[in-house]
């Protein structure tokens, strides 16, 4: 966070960094849309971009309404806003769908400081689960006979399908990705060349997506 806000101060470099931020955000958005599970958050990038938008909006408002530049910039801004909104919305959808699973994992991740959710998202998940539990209890569970009253959260949990296949592109050369063979019990190792594209199962390359070595396409 500090790094970014430092660079943004100088005028000359601003264009370049804003561009990088946008690119990172676009990749994050693309990955989030295509990955079956929730990915680590990119809150710094989102906030940085929001700051840029604010800045741009102020500049545009200085221009007369009929100026062509104003509408071109506005269009670009609304595209960026759409990306941000859609990115956050995709995350929310996943959070809601896999809330129990995410919550269980996230509690462990917080202890090791590798949390995937932002603080706000975490609060949202907590509240969401509490509301759901409250609703189910109030409407039916409390009216059931004694031994049926309990709500077994883990039985209700929905899990993302990590075995689904995805398209990916390698950003750097990676050697020795182990593909488990569940049928013949023979693991296979493959190397990914820089810039090459593959169709693979999500699970073996999940970590590569999270550290940015590959991106989903």
């Amino acid at each position, binding site marked *: 966070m500090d790094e970014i806000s430092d660079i943004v101060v100088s005028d000359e470099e601003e264009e370049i960094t804003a561009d990088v931020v946008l690119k990172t955000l676009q990749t994050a958005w693309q990955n989030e849309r295509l990955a079956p599970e929730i990915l680590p958050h990119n809150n710094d990038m989102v906030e940085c971009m929001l700051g840029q938008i604010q800045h741009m909006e102020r500049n545009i408002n200085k221009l007369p309404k009929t100026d062509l530049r104003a509408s071109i910039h506005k*269009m670009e801004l609304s*595209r960026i806003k759409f990306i941000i909104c859609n990115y956050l919305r995709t995350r929310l959808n996943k959070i809601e769908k896999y809330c129990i699973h995410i919550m269980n994992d996230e509690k462990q991740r917080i202890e090791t400081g590798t949390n995937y959710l932002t603080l706000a998202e975490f*609060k949202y998940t907590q509240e969401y689960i509490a*509301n759901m539990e409250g*609703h189910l209890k109030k*409407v039916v569970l409390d009216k*059931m006979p004694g031994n049926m009253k309990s709500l077994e959260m883990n039985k*209700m949990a929905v899990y993302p399908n990590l075995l689904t296949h995805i398209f990916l592109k390698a950003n750097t050369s990676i050697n020795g990705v182990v593909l488990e063979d569940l049928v013949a019990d023979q693991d296979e190792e493959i190397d990914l060349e820089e810039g090459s594209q593959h169709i693979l199962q999500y699970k073996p390359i999940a970590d590569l997506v999270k550290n940015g070595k590959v991106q989903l396409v």
Partner: protein
Amino acid sequence: MFAEKVIELLKEAERNQDTIDPFNDEKIRQILEEMQTLFKMNMNDANATSENKSLWTTVQVRHSALERNKRCLLAYLYSRMEKIKTLRWEFGSVLPPDVRELLSDDEYEWFSKYSTNLASYMRSLGQDIGYSGIDLTENLRPPKALYMEVVCAADYGKLELSDGDVVMLRKNSRHFLPAAECQTLVRQGVLKQIL
């Protein structure tokens, strides 16, 4: 047959997947009643099993029926919650009265809680850099153009745009408005886009 009513309930819900049916209070009450009866019968028989082992199977079957009922009821409520969630994204925090009627009071309470939770999440976005939050329910579709031509379907009154202009929205009047600002109204059905 055990658990027959709950299947009827699920079938009924499945028939209209895109829309939401009125909350079936009566059927749920009947199912819960069935569960209580089954439970009572089981209690009696379970106490008697120490003498008569042949009752054990009956108890097991009833227990499965109870679990099935429970599971199906939860599924019914859960799928309704999913639908109610989409209502929040479509209509915003205030539901039109005809949609409101389809929800039970408890569901409406859940809806309000969901809505508040979502709103406070959206408000918190970008707060560190002095933003007052982003409305994620805007920008639902990729922007194609800055402005769009719309016709009013209802008398709405004054709409103030972010640049300070005020537009009077009367029934059947046509306007050329910034897309970002009239999307919510389009979804609420106040405006219609002319393609």
